[in-house]
Structures are given as structure tokens and as C-alpha cells.
């Protein structure tokens, strides 16, 4: 092993209530391709944000040694000056600008006080050649495909004389040809002395390209493996990634599943015109009355899109396929229609599109079913509203001084319970929960699980979308694994293991 270009020692990064990184050490040798793998929430992105100065020096503990010197980055431009460039999943290009403008954005080539456009265009052409992209630098970025945009990002990083290039899930949005192209480019950059850290969920590609692999889990470094010694295989990686114990924090499974199928989806495909991509392909599944069906898979695999496309298609996807709710063929044009048919969807991002933070608990609880507490002409009965809100406050144990408290003042767990209360108040038959326990503490998690158990015992059916495998295994009766917009597998709970699921999800 040659000298390390980067050494991160004993990094600890805490957020209120969570230790995101717990004593992580990470070493990258000069000139290698180093892959960083781990489940969602393992701490990969946090680690990279610490490295790039998004979380400035002082907000974490531990040392970063880069190029032989201890670094104290205060912001991204500090780390860029030192020679570190990060390319995120969401590309940071400006679509309305040309390729050459984008490449030199923020470090424009100048002649005196003016931008030297001739030199810029010439240099941009050289950079594009380096990333083997054969386009006119004067094209606008928005006219390029995602694969080419990614290469422009890399060209932009190279133009800053980058020593360490970090790519966060670069191939997640690419098709196979573009992915292969990108991996080849990384190999040729390695030959030119650029060191590269690749964060990826696609284990096949990790095995194909990595010199070294580091596995993170729950904010800790689990192991660093050397590919040239044959230490990197799919089974070994999965074993290290999922090694988490399933603690006994789930309520006993006393579900009474009937044979009645309440929801069936057939050959369901969806195309998102806003990003120009097929997001769901031939999805088939069903849910029985009183059953909790887990939808496992990685972030971006299409699970949320599946829920949204079924629940009134708010994002205007082009949908093909059939859906049967309680035996009746349905097609919902608006969330309102789905709600009337007995379907409820608790969103993944409770702050972004779940709750109205500036309103109080009672207003949020009743929002989706106001007519229930209003007269025929639509005058809301304030007393009935308070009564309803108080009922849910006690039955779901929402910890708030009163139902007139603004939701923004509640903790994450209690906000989630308000979100849940809102959807229980529409009295659904099928409840879709999207990451129901994200970002909430263990106690609140257990309470949510208990509520879910109670609901299915009362005959409700639950679809639980979750990235946390222990939770999927602990709560579901049956599991579908989603990968790249397709159902990659289905298994009853008795046959499911973390390893099996992870293998299908990372295919």
C-alpha cells in the first residue's frame, strides 16, 4: 500500500439526539479507487460532508489529514482549494448555462477584470477531452442527458486540479451503457494519478472497480477490505453491511390475515416526464386484509414513486397498468379520490409534504377529512375538532401541552404521530406508511410499531416502505424488494433474511 493521501482519524459527529458518526477512521491511499459502502443512514454522506467542509471544522471532533497536513476546512471552498472535489447525486450544474460556463463557474478564467471567454472555451474543450466527452462546449447543459451531465461535472472537478475526487452514487441515475462508460473513465483517471472515492449501492460495480472497500454501519467503520487480496466478494460485503442485530423492540406479531385481497396492482409502469425517465416497470403486487406488507429497497429505488403514483398521481406521471382496491378497478386522478376509496398515504418527508408546520395540532389532524366535523354547508365545528384532536392525542400518545400547539414546536416523533393521526382520521382501509420511523428516537419508534400492530388487528392493511431492514423484518408479514423501479423479489417473513433482501436490493 502506498502512502495515504487522506486520513480521517476518530471522527465523531453528533446531531441533536443522534450520533451520526461514532469514531470513524477512514484511509485512502494515493492513486487508488476506494469504495465506501453501507446501508442508508450508515453515515457515508455525513462523513463526506465532514471531509468537504459542509460541516465545518469544530462541528465535529477528530482529525483530517490530507496531503500530509492536518486540515481545518471551514467551508467547501477551503476543501476545494486543497484539491478535494465532491460530485453529488443531485447534479450541481446550472441547466440554462453552457457547458463551458458551467465548467469554470466560480473560478472563471480572467484577463484583467474581465472573463477571458476564448481561453475558457479552449480549456473547456481540453477538459471535455479528458473525460472523453465529444460535445460542443457551447451546448447548454439542459440539452444533455444525465450521463453526459455527470461527465461535465467531472470535467468541472478536473479543471480545479483535483487530487481527490469523491463521487456520491454517480451511477444511480444512469443506464448501463453510461455507467460502464463512467467506470472506464474512473479507471483512466486512476492511471493519470487522480485518487477517487466512490460511494455506491451497486455492489457489482464496487467489486468490478474497487482497489479498496470500506464498509460503514451505524456510524462506525466496520472493516476495510483489499480487493487485490481477494477480500471483496458480494457475500462478504453484504455480511458486513447488514450485521446489525435485530433487537427485540417489536411488538408481538398477532396479525389476523384474511384471504381477502384489498389491494392488487398489475403491470404497473410509470414514466416521469419532468426528468424524462421510466421510474416504474411492470410492478405487480397485492395486499391482504389485516396484513403488513413491507417494501424494502434502497433510497431512489422507486418505492416512494410507486406510492405517489397509486395515491392520486400528484406528480403527473404517465401511468400504465391496473389497480384494484377492494376488488374494484380504480384509477385515481387526485389524492382526494384515493382518500375516498379508502387509501391513505403518510409521506416520507413529514416536514416537506406531510404537515403544515405553521398550523396547530388540531388543524393538521383534521385537514384531510374536514367535512367529517363540518356542517353540510361547510362550516367547521370548532368544538368537534378539538374533541377529535384530543382523542388522537390520547390514543396515539402525542406529547403536546395542548392540541392548539403549533406542530413546528413538537419533536420529530410527535410530529410523526400527528401525521399518522391525520391519516387515521380519514378512516382508511389501506394505510401506506413511507419511512414511518425516519429520524425519530427508539421510544417513539416502538410506539409507532405498537400502533401499527393495533391497526392491523382491527382489520386495516398496511404497506410499510422502509430502508431499515431490521424494521422491515420485525414488522412485516410479507416483503417485496424494490430495485430500479422493479419488484426484484417477494418473500414471506419466514424466509426473509437481511442478506437475501440486501442481495436483491443491490442488484
Amino acid at each position: 500500500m502506498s502512502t495515504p493521501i487522506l486520513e480521517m482519524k476518530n471522527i465523531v459527529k453528533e446531531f441533536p439526539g443522534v450520533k451520526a458518526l461514532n469514531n470513524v477512521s477512514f484511509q485512502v491511499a494515493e492513486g487508488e479507487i476506494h469504495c465506501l459502502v453501507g446501508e442508508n443512514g450508515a453515515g457515508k454522506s455525513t462523513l463526506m460532508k465532514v471531509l468537504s467542509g459542509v460541516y465545518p471544522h469544530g462541528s465535529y471532533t477528530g482529525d483530517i489529514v490530507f496531503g500530509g497536513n492536518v486540515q481545518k476546512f471551514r467551508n467547501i471552498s477551503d476543501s476545494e482549494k486543497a484539491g478535494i472535489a465532491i460530485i453529488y447525486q443531485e447534479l450541481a450544474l446550472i441547466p440554462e448555462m453552457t457547458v463551458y460556463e458551467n465548467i469554470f463557474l466560480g473560478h472563471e478564467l480572467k484577463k484583467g477584470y474581465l472573463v477571458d471567454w476564448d481561453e475558457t472555451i479552449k480549456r473547456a474543450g481540453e477538459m471535455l477531452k479528458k473525460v472523453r466527452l465529444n460535445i460542443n462546449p457551447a451546448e447548454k447543459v439542459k440539452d444533455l442527458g444525465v450521463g453526459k451531465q455527470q461527465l461535465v461535472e467531472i470535467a468541472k472537478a478536473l479543471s480545479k486540479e483535483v487530487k481527490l475526487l469523491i463521487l456520491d452514487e454517480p451511477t444511480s441515475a444512469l443506464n448501463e451503457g453510461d455507467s460502464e462508460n463512467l467506470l472506464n473513465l474512473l479507471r483512466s483517471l486512476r492511471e493519470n494519478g487522480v485518487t477517487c472515492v466512490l460511494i455506491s449501492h451497486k455492489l457489482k460495480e464496487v467489486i468490478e472497480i474497487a482497489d479498496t472497500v470500506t464498509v460503514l454501519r451505524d456510524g462506525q467503520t466496520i472493516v476495510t477490505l483489499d480487493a487485490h487480496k481477494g477480500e471483496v466478494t458480494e457475500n462478504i460485503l453484504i455480511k458486513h453491511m447488514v450485521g446489525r442485530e435485530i433487537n427485540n423492540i417489536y411488538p408481538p406479531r398477532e396479525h389476523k390475515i384474511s384471504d381477502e385481497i384489498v389491494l392488487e396492482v398489475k403491470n404497473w409502469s410509470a414514466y416521469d416526464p419532468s426528468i424524462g425517465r421510466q421510474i416504474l416497470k411492470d410492478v405487480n403486487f397485492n395486499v391482504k386484509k389485516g396484513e403488513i406488507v413491507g417494501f424494502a429497497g434502497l433510497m431512489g429505488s422507486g418505492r416512494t414513486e410507486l406510492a405517489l403514483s397509486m395515491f392520486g398521481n400528484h406528480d403527473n406521471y404517465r401511468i400504465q397498468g391496473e389497480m384494484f382496491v377492494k376488488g374494484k378497478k380504480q384509477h385515481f386522478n387526485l389524492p382526494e379520490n384515493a382518500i375516498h376509496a379508502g387509501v391513505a398515504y403518510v409521506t416520507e418527508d413529514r416536514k416537506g409534504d406531510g404537515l403544515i408546520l405553521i398550523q396547530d395540532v388540531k388543524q393538521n389532524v383534521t385537514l384531510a377529512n374536514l367535512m367529517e366535523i363540518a356542517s353540510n354547508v361547510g362550516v367547521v365545528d370548532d368544538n368537534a375538532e378539538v374533541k377529535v384532536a384530543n382523542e388522537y392525542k390520547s390514543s396515539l400518545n402525542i406529547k403536546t401541552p395542548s392540541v392548539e400547539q403549533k406542530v413546528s414546536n413538537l419533536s420529530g416523533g410527535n410530529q410523526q404521530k400527528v401525521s399518522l393521526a391525520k391519516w387515521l382520521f380519514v378512516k382508511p382501509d389501506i394505510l401506506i406508511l413511507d419511512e414511518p420511523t425516519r429520524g425519530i428516537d427508539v421510544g417513539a419508534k416502538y410506539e409507532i410499531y405498537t400502533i401499527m400492530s393495533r391497526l392491523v388487528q382491527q382489520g386495516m392493511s398496511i404497506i410499510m416502505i422502509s430502508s431499515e431492514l431490521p424494521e422491515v423484518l420485525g414488522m412485516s408479514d410479507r416483503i417485496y424488494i424494490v430495485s430500479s423501479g422493479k419488484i426484484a423479489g417477494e418473500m414471506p417473513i419466514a424466509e426473509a433474511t437481511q442478506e437475501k433482501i440486501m442481495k436483491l436490493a443491490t442488484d
Partner: protein
Amino acid sequence: MFFNNIAKQLKQNIRDYGMYIVLFVIMAIFTITTNGTFISSRNISNLMDQVGYIAVLAVGMTLVIVIRHIDLSVGFLSGFIGAIAAIAMKYWGFPIYAVIPLALGLGVLAGGIVGFLVAEVQIPAFVATLAGWLIYRGAILLVLMSTGTVITSDSAFNAIGNGFIPDIPDFGFLPGVHKITLVLGVIAIIWFIFSELGSRKNKQEYGFEVLPMDMFVLKLVFISIVVGLITYELSGYNGMSWTLAIVLVVVLIYDFVTNRTVLGRHIYAVGGNPEAAALSGIDVKKVTYFVFCSMGALCGLSGILFTSRLRSATPTAGTLFELDAIAAAYVGGVSAAGGVGKVTGSLIGALVMISLTSGMNLMGIDISYQYIARGTILAAAVIFDVVTRTRAK
């Protein structure tokens, strides 16, 4: 202790009470600087009539801003509809009971067009209504091109902006006092006290926090005195004007709709978080249509009030109304971030802006300083909104 309580209440609820305090301070200052002319019955009566056509626009604008849009076209739309109303009466022989529905209907139609552009075509409201601003400006000039200013001679129509509600005949009791106005004022105070007591009792039953008793009494006494004073002033002059009656009815209806109905909840939900509202089964497009159509109808009403007040339709009618209405809404506590704002607040905001104009006119302050003063108040109101909101976090 008592004053500590007052200070504490004011501090906690500064966002709710802020504009009332501002209005009070402005009125007090002008009363002093004009040696009492400002607070005279005649001036207060005039003030209420002047505020009318801006207040109804500000009420509609409140909802538009609450759902995170803006409407720049309201001024010239009012002017245009006012011109059509005048022409309809003078040249087409429309009676007043046909002209009013015509004006409101035209307004709803115009609002529907903006609603369509914003909700369906997804054009930013700023651009769509800026286009409306230009188009209606041209339309006023066009319809008045051959006739110039159109004088309205219908006395019933002109009474809307200039007349007063009738009174019972003088029978020797309280001569020179407008008795119906006095009775209405007394009824308003009694109704206010009873509804406050009722809502306090209700809240206590549910175990909610209520104002301490002394603060509650203070609030009741203060508002009763304010309403009583205004009633006293008005009844000592000509009584309540038709304009004030119309504005009060509009504000009461809108206050009821926004606070008590499902529709009102949906409007605030869309403003508070459009994504969450849509995913909660609220038809955001429908809400957008409603808000712009209501804005249009109020433009029609504003056009009638203004035309009637001037007893004529002029080519410059409606100039800068939109900015006064927007300013009134912001001064009245509507949040630029959406989802927050009361129509009653906007009424107070309109009163603040008109009081400034009226008071400075009485003092003989040059128009240049007037604009600067109004601009400063507007900026201060929005700064206040942003600062108190970020502090609350």
C-alpha cells in the same frame, strides 16, 4: 403587577396586537399635530369612506397573498369595471340593480381568467397579473375614448360612495344624533362582549389557556371604548355611511369564511404548505380559482365604490390601488411566506395607510414626504413580520 401583565401579554402577542397599536399611535400623533381636526367627526367619517375601496381590495388581496400569489391587476380592473358600470347606466340605460351584478360578474370572470393562467397554465401570478395591469389600463382608455369622463347621475348609485344609512325621524329625543348608528354601535358592543365571554367559557371547558381575568376585562373595555368612540363620532355627524356598512359586511363575511369554514381551512392549508395540502386531498387548483375569482368580485365592488364616490368614471381611476391594497395587507400582518394573515388585519392595515394620507394632508405635508412616509411604514411592517417570525423559531 397589572402593568407587568399588560407588558407580558403585549410581548407574547405582539404579532396580533402590533398593527392596532400602530394605528392607535398614528391616530394619536395626527390628533395632536392637527389640533384635533384629525379626530373630528367629519374627518373620521370621510376617512371611513376613503378607506372603503382600498379595504375591499385588501381583503381579497389577503387571500391571494396567503396562497403565495400576488395580483397586480386589481387597480385598473376596478377602474375598468367602474367605467363599464358608469357607461352601462348612462348610455345603455341599465338600472342600478342590474349594474351591480354586472360589475361583480365581470370581476369574477376576470378573476377566473387569472385563476386559469395561474392554476392550469402555471404562469407566475406576478406575470399574469402584470399583463392584466397593462390590458385593463388600456381597456379603460379605450372605453372612455369617445366620451371622456362619464358622469353618473343616478342618485341611488352615487349614494353608495357618498350617502349615509337612513335614520328614524327626529322625535325630540337626542336631536342632531344619528340614532340608528348609535343603536348599531351599541348592538355591536354587546354582541362582541357576549361572543368573547362565550368563547372564553368554551376554551376553559376544554382546558385551554385563556387570558388572565384582568387582561380579559381590559381587552373588552378597550375594544368597547374604541367601537363606542367611533360610533359616537359617526352618529354626531351624518351617521354610518353606506360605504362603511358595505365594508363591514364584506369583512364580516370574509372573516367568517376564512375562520370558520372548510373552504377557509383549505385556503390556509394551501398557503401553509401546498404539497402537504395537495397530498391531503385538497384540490389546490379549485382553491386558486376561488381566491382569484373572489379577488375579481371585490375589484368589481371596489370599482363601484370608487366610481360612486367620485360620481364619475375617469380614465385614471384605479391608479396605484393595487399597491395600496398590497401594502395594507402586509401592514395588516399578512406573511410574505404564505399561510398567515387575517382579513381583519388587512382592514386595520388599510386604515393605517389611509390615516397616514389623511393626517399628512391635513398637516399640509408635501406629497413627496407622504410617499416616503408610507414606504417607510410598509418596510417597517414587513421587517417586523420577518423579525418576529424568525425569533419565534
